[in-house]
């Protein structure tokens, strides 16, 4: 091969790169490792896993039925590219079309796009879109119930824009956002950003929210959408992880982005639409690409290119396999498990901090026995996320989430907590 390209050796292929910029030494990187060595090396790094994990905070361990893994592992999905050549990608295009349909239905919106990176970036892109639609407005109101890391991402995206971000506090007793801003100021804002259920698990009821305000909603536990009425919003964003996607330390997952059809030209991300082929047969293709960076460049609605196709596929196959009633059953069992756990902890003298209704996640105060979570952790039982991580004033408060995985075991889990808790 070298001879046929007129090169005397491999080095000759690099003649266009001046010697002074070339590396003068070999790369210092471990390997090559044979497969067996590599697997053994990884095995040796592993620490014991927790036995029980009641952690949520935007990532939930729901059951992933075997067919989801099996179907999504097919190389035709895994090793294909973004469907720019629709004749070779009708499978992927149909998957996106179904994904868009599912997310529009779940959010109660008219249209949804083909996915974002995750819930945090989808929320930030939602606010950027609101800014394009409402370019005279200068203020964004953000609920303190928005996931702290979503808020950090939003702050980053808005950092170099001339906008004011005002935080709306949550009511200390109900845990719901206090929309104590005059209606006309809400209406004049870029957006009201609200997460429901919020970071503390509380379902927002929108009391005090102007019905004519432009709302960007976020949802970090999409399983709740199967049973809760969607929070009324102009743009609905959120995280798909609960639908068949392993937590994977928080990535990759997929974000969703849904809105009204009239706003379609300001949407970020890929859209798949229906058309016909030369024979008049139904077919699908990427559409309205004129919004996208590879055509519109600096005037694009977003810089997003590669998004999260395989995770959209997992979401879609999960929703199809479970069916509407299956997903609703999972959502109900998750919520009931949370109810049972909350009641049980409460009875042990660990009160629920907020009175607002919750779906599958809630905040518990462990002041009565602050060392209990630590003692349980040593036994591989992780009792929620310490809120002190983000909120200095919430010492001894923990955010606890349950799913259908815990549903059969709530009594046993409560018994274990009772055994290790200091008595009243």
């Amino acid at each position, binding site marked *: 091969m070298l001879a046929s390209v007129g090169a005397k050796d491999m080095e000759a292929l690099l003649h266009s790169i001046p010697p002074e910029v070339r590396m003068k030494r070999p790369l210092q990187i471990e390997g090559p490792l044979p497969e067996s060595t590599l697997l053994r090396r*990884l095995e040796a790094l592993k620490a014991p896993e927790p036995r029980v994990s009641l952690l949520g905070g935007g990532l939930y361990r729901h059951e992933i039925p075997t067919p989801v893994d099996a179907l999504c592992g097919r*190389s035709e999905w*895994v090793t294909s590219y973004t469907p720019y050549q629709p004749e070779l990608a009708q499978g992927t295009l149909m998957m996106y079309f179904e994904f868009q349909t599912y997310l529009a239905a779940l959010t109660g919106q008219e249209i949804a796009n083909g996915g974002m990176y995750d819930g945090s970036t989808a929320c930030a892109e939602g606010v950027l879109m609101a800014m394009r639609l409402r370019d005279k407005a200068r203020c964004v109101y953000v609920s303190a119930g928005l996931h702290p890391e979503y808020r950090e991402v939003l702050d980053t995206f808005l950092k170099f824009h001339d906008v004011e971000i005002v935080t709306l506090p949550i009511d200390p007793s109900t845990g719901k956002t206090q929309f104590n801003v005059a209606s006309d100021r809400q209406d004049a804002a870029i957006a009201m950003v609200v997460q429901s259920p919020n970071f503390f698990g509380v379902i927002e009821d929108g009391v005090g929210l102007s019905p004519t305000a432009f709302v960007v909603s976020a949802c970090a536990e999409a399983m709740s959408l199967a049973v809760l009425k969607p929070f009324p919003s102009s743009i609905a964003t959120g995280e798909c992880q609960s639908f068949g996607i392993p937590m*994977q330390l928080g990535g990759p997952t997929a974000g969703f982005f849904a809105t009204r059809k009239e706003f379609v030209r300001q949407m970020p991300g890929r859209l798949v639409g*229906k058309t016909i082929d030369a024979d008049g047969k139904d077919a699908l293709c990427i559409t309205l690409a004129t919004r996208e960076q590879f055509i519109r460049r*600096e005037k694009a609605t*977003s810089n997003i290119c590669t998004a999260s196709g395989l995770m959209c596929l997992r979401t879609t196959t999960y929703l*199809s396999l479970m069916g509407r009633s299956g997903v609703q059953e999972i959502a109900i069992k998750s919520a009931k498990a949370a109810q049972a756990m909350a009641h049980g902890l409460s009875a042990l003298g660990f009160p629920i901090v907020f009175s607002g209704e919750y779906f599958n996640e809630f905040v518990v105060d462990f002041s009565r026995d602050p060392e209990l979570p630590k003692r349980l*952790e040593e036994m591989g039982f992780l009792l929620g996320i310490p809120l002190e991580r983000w909120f200095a004033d919430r010492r001894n408060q923990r955010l606890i989430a349950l799913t259908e995985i815990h549903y059969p075991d709530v009594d046993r889990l409560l018994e274990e907590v009772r055994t290790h808790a200091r008595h009243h």
Partner: protein
Amino acid sequence: MRAITEPAIFELGSDENPGFSCVGTNPSVDKFNLPFAIRNDEMGGWSQVNEIDVVRHYTRLSTLNFDINRGMYPLGSCTMKHNPLLNERVAGDPHFAHCHPYWPASFLKAHHEVMCELARDLAEVSGFDEISIQPAAGAQGELAAVFMIKAYLESKGLGHKKTVLIPDTAHGTNPASAAMAGFNCKHIASGPDGWLRIEDVLPHLDDTVAAIMVTNPNTLGIYERDFVKIADAVHNVGGLVYMDGANFNAIMGVFQPGKIGADVMHFNLHKTFTTPHGGGGPGSGPIGFNRQLSPFAPSAPGGKSIGRMKAYFGQWGMFIRAWCYIRALGGAGLHQASLDAILNANYLRKHLESALSLPYSTSTLHEVVFTDKNFPNGLITLDFAKRIIDHGFHPPTTYFPIMVKGAIMIEPTETEPRRELDRFIEAVRSVVEEMRTNPDMVKRAPHTTPVRRLDETRAARQLELRWRPNAAKA
């Protein structure tokens, strides 16, 4: 032979079917009442489908796709190389799949070690002082980089620097990212040999220049010969140099961008480091940067950070795949991968330059761009791309880079064996020959796919973006 097509899943469901169930019952839990009313709307025609129908539906759909495991996917600048199956196995290990970022660190020992080692490897291969693995994909890595540049300049009281220079060979994400950070983009034409000349950059350099964004090797597959001079000149006016790492597959062990004038660069783990493209993601876009930019990095401590780009750690599932790939090859293997990628691209160039038209005679690295200039009978790049499908190949990238009229951009990658390259060469030649002998056959291609050429204008005009029950019946 035309394959069958498959209806949307919603046409296979029925409310008579039960939903899939994976939990039993538990009376002591079921006795609790839910504190909310359950929504009972139709949810757009979503009902229940039998397991066998779901399995067949997604299996059939998958067969309508073309994928690397079926054949060569020579998309220029996309680096569609083989995705080793070992990586999929490791990423699917429950220890690495079902882990939560807020678990105490003692449970995440392996994860932290893998992330640290990956960051160290990326620093070594790129020559940058530090790495942030947080960005979600290449475009987000770019965005993090331009945010960092902006924050750095503002911290120096240089907020008036608002111009970002972008050569015409750039990916669209470059100007889009720059615009999202509030920069103005100024486009620079490449020189007559397909690389950016210092003399074409100098007239644009003034006190307003914040940065230049350069892909190197560029999207013509050409090494940017004036890169060091350009970097020096931009630095001299107080600007920074962003290097787009989309084409990093050509340069592993060849040169280190961090040592030759680049201040910050993104990686695409899904290009260079074999994490799968997955029909449009997920990607992963770590960035490398020099020490002066460290305080501004995503989630860096010290109060100067641009902040967070994405919730949690980044794309862990991609990190572990890239970690495996890097270790399976080792330093020498990575360098060899780049050399082989360059050899394969030059082999194709040599054997296709008589059949296709080469706009630049400049030597190229891992990819090569041809044009449709010599196609007979009014046939164009689009026709070529569609007809090559009938020979069992995915088409190359077309009409990019944008300054090459009718561009056909080919990147075979190092993982294509010579036999496959020869088959591709044969196919390209036969399509070009057929353009003379049977142009209509080419014009109407593809002929072997599940659907024929699409009316893409109609999709934008009608805008049907979701399945609807009545549309199916009509």
